[in-house]
């Protein structure tokens, strides 16, 4: 079947169609609803769930045993670890072997040949880079994938991955701006850090503790480290999980750095690190739970058993409120628009067929078959859908662009999670297009019997 021949009649009929403006408007609204509203809703839900399902919200810290004059807390040791592991919903109970966060100063950045790094022939601004990459964090689950280079899963020890952009806070006008740091890919950062550790040792009765362990924060060593940037990840995509300005290292790298610090500390303060090194239970332990929903239950169980649990990962309640409110209101609006569009299209198809009985009868009289008439009428809706996707797409793009700019410049970091990447926008435009093609098709399929029932002799009616 020749499409241009089919379109010949469809285009002509569309010119005279009574409801075409209404149908077009409904389709445009449907496109905007899906491309903007549904997109935002899904983005919020995805970021919210991604954040909540990340490991930081499923972990409970348990300190070593401590005995105070009035009360005592159990710690994890060879006698109690099985008890902890046997609690329902507990997945693992591991000692914290390294710092999960470590701040540093960047003192140098070199390329593979040992040369200073330049950007378009200009020296790089080390101070600005340090403002956006001033600490490393451990990617415990190695879930961050890089758009450029390797992820930490595939990379050697003493490497790192960085976001494509840093966020610079301007104190003069309280705005945030993006700072492109993707050019650091492949470069080696030389950083200096004061490696501190929370060192536990057997209580000697001199402090508050009568028994168990006492603790102090000890500066183990000043380290100079070389970290090669092996990958770059998208900040917009991973912001909900990583936060802003986060240089990530693997657990092995973090362990290596810890070992370096301990080795240095052994030289200068052997007694202090002795138990830290030799006693596996002179550590905080991290209890990992199977899901966020069960964290409270496990915490209660640990308390009941006499441990001292700490939950660090608590979702910002305002974000939770925002997410819930927007999801509820947005869902209602989206459903309302799609329902209105469907009803309107259904009525349009129905009246279209009813009002054109004589015309359909004539077409059948001169030899047109029901299938061709069906296609010709459906093409009228396809033409409208194409118009709607262009108009709706442009309007939606404008809305998304405006929202992205606002969120990008917001000082509230959570709003970065509402930035819609253009690839995602394009995907939702495709979904919207599919929807406004499918709804009239379904309506028309339902009305097929009407077309079939119209007989050629209808043409003989005035």
């Amino acid at each position, binding site marked *: 079947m020749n499409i241009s021949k089919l379109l010949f009649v469809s285009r002509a009929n569309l010119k005279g169609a009574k409801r075409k403006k209404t149908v077009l408007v409904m389709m445009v609204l449907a496109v905007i609803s899906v491309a903007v509203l549904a997109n935002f809703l899904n983005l919020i839900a995805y970021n919210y769930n991604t954040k909540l399902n990340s490991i930081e919200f499923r972990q409970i810290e348990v300190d070593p045993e401590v005995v105070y004059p009035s009360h005592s807390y159990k710690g994890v040791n060879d006698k109690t670890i099985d008890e902890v592991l046997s609690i329902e919903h507990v997945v693992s109970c591991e000692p914290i072997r390294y710092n999960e966060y470590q701040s540093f100063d960047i003192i140098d950045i070199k390329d593979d040949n040992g040369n200073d790094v330049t950007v378009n022939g200009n020296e790089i601004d080390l101070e600005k880079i340090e403002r956006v990459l001033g600490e490393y964090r451990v990617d415990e689950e190695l879930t961050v994938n890089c758009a450029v280079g390797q992820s930490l899963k595939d990379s050697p020890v003493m490497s790192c991955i960085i976001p494509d952009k840093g966020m610079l806070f301007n104190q003069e006008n309280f705005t945030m701006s993006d700072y492109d740091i993707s050019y650091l890919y492949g470069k080696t950062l030389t950083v200096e850090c004061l490696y501190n550790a929370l060192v536990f040792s057997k209580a000697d009765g001199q402090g508050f503790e009568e028994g168990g362990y006492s603790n102090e924060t000890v500066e183990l060593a000043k380290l100079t480290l070389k970290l090669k940037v092996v990958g770059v990840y998208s900040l917009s995509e991973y912001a909900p999980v990583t936060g802003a300005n986060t240089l990530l290292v693997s657990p092995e790298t973090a362990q290596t750095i810890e070992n370096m610090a301990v080795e240095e500390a052994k030289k200068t303060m052997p007694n202090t690190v002795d138990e830290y090194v030799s006693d596996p239970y002179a550590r905080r332990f991290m209890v990992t739970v199977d899901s966020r929903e069960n964290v409270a239950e496990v915490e209660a169980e640990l308390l009941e058993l006499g441990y001292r649990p700490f939950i660090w990962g608590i979702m910002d309640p305002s974000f939770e409120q925002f997410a819930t409110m927007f999801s509820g209101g947005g869902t209602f609006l989206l459903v309302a628009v799609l329902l209105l569009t469907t009803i309107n299209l259904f009525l349009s198809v129905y009246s279209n067929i009813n009002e054109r009985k004589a015309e359909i009868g004539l077409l059948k009289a*001169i030899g047109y078959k029901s299938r061709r008439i069906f296609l010709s009428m459906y093409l009228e809706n396809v033409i409208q859908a194409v118009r709607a996707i262009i108009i709706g797409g442009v309007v939606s793009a404008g809305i998304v662009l405006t929202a992205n700019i606002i969120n990008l410049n917001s000082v509230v970091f959570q709003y970065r999670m509402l930035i819609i990447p253009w690839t995602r926008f394009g995907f939702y435009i495709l979904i919207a297009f599919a929807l406004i093609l499918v709804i009239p098709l379904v309506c028309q399929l339902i009305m097929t019997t009407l077309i079939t029932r119209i007989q050629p002799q209808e*043409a003989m009616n005035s």
Partner: protein
Amino acid sequence: MKSICVKSLTKVYDNRVTALKNVTLSIEEGSFIAVMGHSGSGKSTLLQMAGLLDLPSEGSVVINGEEVSSLKKNELANVRMKTIGFVFQAFHLNPQLKAYENVMLPMLINPEYKKKSEIEQHARKLIDKVGLSERAEHYPNELSGGEQQRVAIARALANDPDFILADEPTGNLDSDNEANIFELLKELAKSGKGVMVVSHNEAILDYVDKVYYMKDGTLAEERI
């Protein structure tokens, strides 16, 4: 010889109303016949049967020697497309298409025409043939009743059918225009088409070769 033969046609609606009773008639190539009668006499029903717009309850329709009344819907549509052109009282032109574009409509489904340009060219020739070359680019609402009916006739000729069946083609026209239309139909018959007109209008008697009168669903009289 090409012909449409209806044999012993009977049509009963809803098991109650007998619109046609045992009607036998033929339309031959090059002939111009009229079927006349009062309202409800069954003449429009006869045209529907002959033109395969509907199927008889009893009897048969033979077109060019082939029995067609037992064909399926799609096959009937193909036969109509190739062998029969229709002209209706209400013209039924698409108001969104220009005159020549309306004539293109039947050719769009004819597999013999591959290109749209070819179809357009042929449509313009047919518009010229019915004497409307200066009005080809006009929309139906810009044409008079007579002009619209001539466009409808051109459309009926689009796929070069063997027969033209017209249902009250002058029903909405004044006397000058009706004469033009009858004249045009007469010319088509002379060119070899078999033309059957259903009409109340006795003016047609000056143009036709044969007249059939219908009464209460039967052929009451035949005059030459």
